[in-house]
């Protein structure tokens, strides 16, 4: 239904696909969450995955980061199937991507600085002095250099998220996955995070995969967008194409219209029948 979108090449395709999903199905007790997803992400681009709640976008992200083995299909990161490689190789792959979790997911038993330092200390053989400097640099990126010694429980939600981002950047990953980066943030902080995502991509060539349903931010950061609906990719293209699309699903979602092909009500039984049953 979106042939005109899919046929166009992405704007910033600069190399091979470093993420390659093929025929991914996920089902929990007979309920299909993802239904045949084929998705490629190219080096250096920022891909935004759009979708309403329940569209399967969080599940898709979990499959991508190696946390949920799909019922069917393959997921290759940097050319290696992450559900087939041995544990040691998977761990090596894991160092090449970072994740910003929805609520930060900081290690609550450690101070902010240690949240970042632990990754560097465990994975790179560096001296304490260098680690200290690196931690400060990462925190400076998100503007929280003074908060190194606070515990996560002492931070606000937005600050936790920024520390989460600093932690995702700790090992200078090649890919960063963002799970709803703007959710629960004030407009300024959300803007700052958007700018960071763009800077990382433009200046450092970091590949970004962003799961979100916030259109404003999506249009700001995306090189390419895909939209999920009921476990399928129903459209993909550039932000410009999404803005001008004739696809009623995309149009309704982008403009946030209450009426359209995407129903608010999810019941299969007729309302009247249900009441009188």
């Amino acid at each position, binding site marked *: 239904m979106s042939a005109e979108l899919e046929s166009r090449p992405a704007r910033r395709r600069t190399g091979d696909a470093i993420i390659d999903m093929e025929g991914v199905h996920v089902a929990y007790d007979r309920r299909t969450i993802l239904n045949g997803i084929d998705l490629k992400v190219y080096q250096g681009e920022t891909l935004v995955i759009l979708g309403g709640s329940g569209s399967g976008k969080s599940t898709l992200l979990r499959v991508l980061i190696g*946390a949920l083995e799909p019922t069917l299909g393959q997921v290759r990161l940097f050319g290696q199937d992450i559900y087939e490689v041995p544990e040691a190789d998977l761990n*090596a792959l894991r160092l090449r991507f970072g994740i910003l979790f929805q609520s930060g997911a900081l290690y609550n038993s450690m101070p902010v600085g240690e949240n970042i330092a632990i990754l560097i200390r*465990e994975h790179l053989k560096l001296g304490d002095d260098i680690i200290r400097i690196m931690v400060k640099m990462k925190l400076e990126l998100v503007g929280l250099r003074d908060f190194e010694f606070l515990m996560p429980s002492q931070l606000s939600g937005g600050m936790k998220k920024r520390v989460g981002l600093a932690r995702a950047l700790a090992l200078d990953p090649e890919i960063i996955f963002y799970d709803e980066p703007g959710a629960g943030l004030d407009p300024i902080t959300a803007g700052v995070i958007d700018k960071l995502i763009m800077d990382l991509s433009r200046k450092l060539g970091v590949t970004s995969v962003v799961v979100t349903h916030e259109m404003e931010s999506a249009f700001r950061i995306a090189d390419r967008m895909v939209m999920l609906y009921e476990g399928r990719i129903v459209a993909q293209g550039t932000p410009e194409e999404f803005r001008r699309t004739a696809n009623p699903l995309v149009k309704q979602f982008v403009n946030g219209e209450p009426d359209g092909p995407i129903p608010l009500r999810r019941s299969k039984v007729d309302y009247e029948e249900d009441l009188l049953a």
Partner: protein
Amino acid sequence: MLGGARIFRRALQETGARSLGFLAYTGSLFLLFTDALWWMTVGPWKGKGRVRLDDSFVHMERISIRSMGIVALVLFFVGVILALQMAYVLRTLGVTDYIANITGVAMTREMGPLLVAMVMTGFMGAAIAAEIGTMVVSEEVLALETAALPPVRFLVVPRVLATMIVMPCVSLIATYIGILGGLAVGYFLLGMEFEKYVRRTLESLTYKDVFTGLIKAEAFGILIALIGCLEGFQVTGGAEGVGRATTNAVVRSVVAVIVFDLVSTAFFYYFL
């Protein structure tokens, strides 16, 4: 008789399913334990990362110093109760002095480790399940895993190691306190001399009694910590899931401890 056959089949199915569930659970516990042991022993040697002792100290403090008050209270009172109940029976035979022997042996071989374990299911098992469960819910465990920091090494090893080190010590102290409870009854209520009570206790105890008690304490501690961790990792859903895990951790620890106690007591009785 068709109904009867159907009920029988249902019962058989149910029993089968539960047995399989039990086997799977035991298997998961065993795997978790071997994984934790690997990270304690082989892992550090292979340069896969040191054992995080400083994390372990936090847990050691919780299950030793901070639990000591309640452990002492419970054990002292149970010592008193045990001695009084024994005296009630032994009085009719005119041999109340034997409460020293009985309390000593019962505390050392059984009551000390068992009661400490019961206190620990609440003090440690539930706490571990709630902690790890909350970490699962807040995606902290996922964040560890995806950062190639194995959750077993960072979460399970410090807790299991802490119990392995601390449980025998706590159990030993608890046993002393329990015996002290019996001594209080003997000295204050039955008019036994202090030296006599102590002598009778020491006479009736062998190293084997102490040793088997310590083995039990160690095993109980490991079981409780592992079940707490496993329940925590298995949390799904939000706060409700954490609550369920906490309850499960306590209930399953109690059952596991009692079953292990039965088996080991029988083993020690016949083979040691």
